[in-house]
Every structure is written in structure tokens, then in C-alpha cells.
């Protein structure tokens, strides 16, 4: 079984990822936190990253978070990509508002 390496160039983290394992799962297994972990099912968009180098296979991802245009730019969900080579990834800005804003009701 092949083993690949994933480097997050935003944070400098590096971790191994076995063939068939998602990037997010591999990261969680080694206890790193350089990509936010949400549903782990391609549904919530929380784990969105950009792949800047390397080949990977995609599982099913929500079109709301990963439309074809995003896919073309390498913007994918870390819980639904499976490396075929070593990968260089980078973090995406979190679209979610901070906690305080989330809970405020408009007057």
C-alpha cells in the first residue's frame, strides 16, 4: 500500500496519508489540527482547502461547497479527497462569521 505525504504550506504541518485515506482523516489520526474538522462527510464545507500540487481522487462532495468552478481551482473538501501522489495544500479563509456574530439576532 502506498503512503503519501501531505504538506500544509499555510501552517507548515506535514503528515502521512495512506492510500485510500482521506486527507482530513489522515490529519486527525496524527493529532494535527491544521484543517478544521466538521462533518467528515463532504456536506458542511468546513474542511475546505486548496490543493496547490499533486494528484488526488475525489469522493462525493456537496455542490454548495464544492461547485465545479471551485474544483477547477483545486478548492476541495479535505474529508473527501484521497491522494494519489504527495500533496501540497493550503488553508482557505473561513467564510463562517465568528461565534459572537453567529448568535446575534438582527433587531
Amino acid at each position, binding site marked *: 500500500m502506498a503512503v503519501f505525504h501531505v504538506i500544509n504550506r499555510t501552517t507548515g504541518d506535514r503528515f502521512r496519508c495512506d492510500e485510500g485515506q482521506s486527507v482530513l482523516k489522515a490529519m486527525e489520526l496524527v493529532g494535527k489540527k491544521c484543517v478544521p474538522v466538521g462533518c467528515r462527510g*463532504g456536506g458542511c464545507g*468546513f474542511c475546505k482547502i486548496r490543493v496547490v500540487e499533486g494528484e488526488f481522487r475525489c469522493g462525493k462532495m456537496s455542490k454548495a461547497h464544492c461547485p465545479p468552478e471551485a474544483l477547477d481551482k483545486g478548492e476541495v473538501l479535505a474529508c473527501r479527497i484521497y491522494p494519489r501522489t504527495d500533496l501540497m495544500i493550503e488553508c482557505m479563509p473561513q467564510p463562517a462569521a465568528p461565534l459572537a456574530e453567529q448568535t446575534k*439576532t438582527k433587531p
Partner: protein
Amino acid sequence: MKKGVMRPGHVQIRVLDIEEAVKHYTDLMGLIETDRDEQGRVYLKAWTEVDKFSVVLVEADEPGCDFMGFKVVDEAALVQLEKDLVAYGLDVEQIPEGELKDCGRRVRFTVPSGHAFELYADKLYTGKWGVTEVNPEAWPRGLSGMKAVRFDHCLFYGPELAAVYDIFVNVLGFHLAEQVLDPEGTRIAQFLTVSMKEHDIAFIHHEEKGKFHHASFYLETWEDVLRAADLISMTDTSIDIGPTRHGLTHGKTIYFFDPSGNRNEVFCGGDYTYPDHKPVTWQAEQLGKAIFYHDRQLNERFLTVLT
């Protein structure tokens, strides 16, 4: 005041892969597949439910919840509620009988939080699964996984909670059982019921419309919740948090995700309410404890991971 809405009846959940989802909701959660239709939708129920289905899974590009349906006492109540919704100023859509298999006509409307709801009076009565109607045994053998007892409630995230409250309380006859108020007295969470349960439906304020937080299923005991947690580990299912207790409702709970990222809950216990009970209030400053009574702090996922 009661207007004839009786109970939660069904929820239609969008999934990315139908077979993976069916396996999750049946093998792991213990729902029973009761039918499929030409659109490829799969119908499921929990064993104590008397009608044919309570969960409908539909394959889609984007997970989430299409609608939640409430059963009303009879056709006369449905006619009246429909008039009341129209008089309130909501657009109602008629969904003909049989659009969901073995379900009567449904009246669909969307509330200002962006969520679609339905009312209906009829659905095929198939009785509790695996037990006889007369002299029933305590429970059926042959249930899988968590052996979910019933579909219990949903939690939705969206804006305009005050308008949603108005519709649910003043038009549909729900009762506010629990709430979270911010320091200015604005309600940022509302737990609404037509029963003695602390919630048949709940809303938490969120800027984006129409988001789905979870669908919840009832279990009998804390031991069952622990067993659910064991099964989540055994199947390497994506866990969110738990087993723990909520401050709101005081239910004992575990959150996890279906294979498309929709959040599920199984829970037991929880407080009860009657229409003469004042709403239980939590302060927004105590939101961490209100949601996760033991950790006393929110995990970021609770507020942001939605479908």
C-alpha cells in the same frame, strides 16, 4: 392554544449517496426501510411509529433537509390551518395525495427562516413494527444497531426567529417550552412543542437561511445512548460530541453525522412541559452550558457545521 397540529410526522433528508445513507439509517441507527418510489426516494420508520414512514431519504448534489412535516388531527383541521396560514400571508403549496407514497395531501409553506414545512392529515397506518396490535410484546426482535425508538424532532438554523415564533405559536398552536435570550432580551434560540416533549422543533438564530442542524431520534435510556456511542466507534462513524447532557431540555445525547454530513442525534430523557408552564430560559452568556451541560463550552462545530 392547540390548533390541531398533533406531532412531527416526517422529514425529507438529502444525501449524496442513497445506498450509503440507507445503510447508515438502517444498520447503524436501526430504522426500518418500508418503501422506495420512482424518484428513488427511500422511506424509513422507527419501530414504535404507527404510520408507514417518518424519514425520507433523497439523493441530491447537496445534503440538507428538504422539509419537515407535521401530522394534524384530521382533514377539517388541515383545511382550517391552511386558511390560517394564507390569512397570515404565507404562500401555501398543495402537494397532492400520493406524491409521497401512501401519504395524503400535504400543505407546504416556507417560513422566514428559510425552512419548508408541511401539514398533512393522512398517512397509511401500518402499526408498530414487529409487534402485534393486541397483547404486544415489549419490543420486537430483529432490530439493528441503535434501535431508534422514534423520530423525535429537528433543529434548524436561520434568521427571523421572531417571525417564525409568530407562525408556530399563533398560527400553528405550538407552545414555547425553552428559549435562549441575549442580554437585550432578543430570543436567539426557541424550542417549540405541541406535546409534553420539550421540543418537537427548535430554531437557533443564524444569518444564513434554511440551514439544517440535526434530525433527532429517541432512545429509552442512558445505557442505550452509551451503546449508540459504542456503535459509532465500531462503525468508524463521524462523531460530533457526546455522550453528554444538554442544559436546554436536560436531555442526554450524542451527536454524529450521516455519510453525507447531515447531523443526527440520538437522545434519552429530558424535561416535560404543559401549556401552563412558563418557558425555561437560558441566558446567551451561558450558551455553552445550555448546549453542552458538562463541557460548559460550545465546540465551534455546533454553531457552524450545518447542511
